[in-house]
């Protein structure tokens, strides 16, 4: 038991990212409002960003910039996860943008942003056309 606790103490970043991820997933799955789902998606993505940044961390690490000293004499953070997340953040923003644009058009077409009401309207559309 104390082993588990010590493990959690040194690896607390996993706990944080998994908690954030579950919060995000819960919002995406359980919320009926389309905007809240997108917020959940953003929380989910942010959890992954934090996970990546935390795996590049090094104790007492500095910015990975070439100073006058030899690079092996000073500890530096792994820059690769940072670069990857820069790309992933841009991807996340694009997805959020497309999602919000779709929501604006859904609101105009259906007059609502509640999933349950949209499904009812879809149902009546189908009965109308059949």
């Amino acid at each position, binding site marked *: 038991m104390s082993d588990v606790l010590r493990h959690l103490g040194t690896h607390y970043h996993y706990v944080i990212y998994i908690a954030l991820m579950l919060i995000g997933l819960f919002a995406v799955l359980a919320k009926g409002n389309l905007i809240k789902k997108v917020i959940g998606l953003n929380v989910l993505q942010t959890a992954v960003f934090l996970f990546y940044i935390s795996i590049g961390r090094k104790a007492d690490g500095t910015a990975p910039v070439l100073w006058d000293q030899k690079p092996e004499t000073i500890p530096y953070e792994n820059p690769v996860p940072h670069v990857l997340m820069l790309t992933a953040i841009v991807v996340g923003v694009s997805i959020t943008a497309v999602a919000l644009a779709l929501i*604006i058009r859904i609101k105009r077409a259906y007059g609502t942003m509640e999933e349950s009401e949209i499904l009812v309207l879809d149902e009546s559309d189908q009965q109308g056309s059949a």
Partner: protein
Amino acid sequence: MSDAQSPVIRYVARRAVPFIQLYALYVLGHGEDGPGGGFQGGVIFASSIVLLALVFGYGAGRKACPERISDFISPLGCLVYASIGLLCLLMGGMFLEYARLAGPDASDHAKHAAHHFGLIGIEAGVMLTVTASMVTLFFEMARPAPDEGGLDE
């Protein structure tokens, strides 16, 4: 909304815009060997236009960067990036191998300079696209819908 802002805000916003834009170019220029680059520069540049829209209203902001212009610049930036990549290819290198832009038998110094300009070139392309996309995103989200009133005006 534009009438409700205090004159201090209007004055400061108007004077701040050129400095924000200059700073965006500074961030772009230093992206190669320091923190910064096209993404950051583009977002800062777009923020100057967003500031105009927030202070002087949707219409005034859109006038500073009409839809026609932003829709044109957005693919143009990507094209600049891709064209530099293809230019490297035409000069006999691999895609995006900037050092080849100096020519077939250039000195190391010229290759270094070519690498530098290649990077600045693609960063400028990124900046154009990011600026235009950010401006488009903001104005599309804030566009006053006929029936809902929208952000302002």
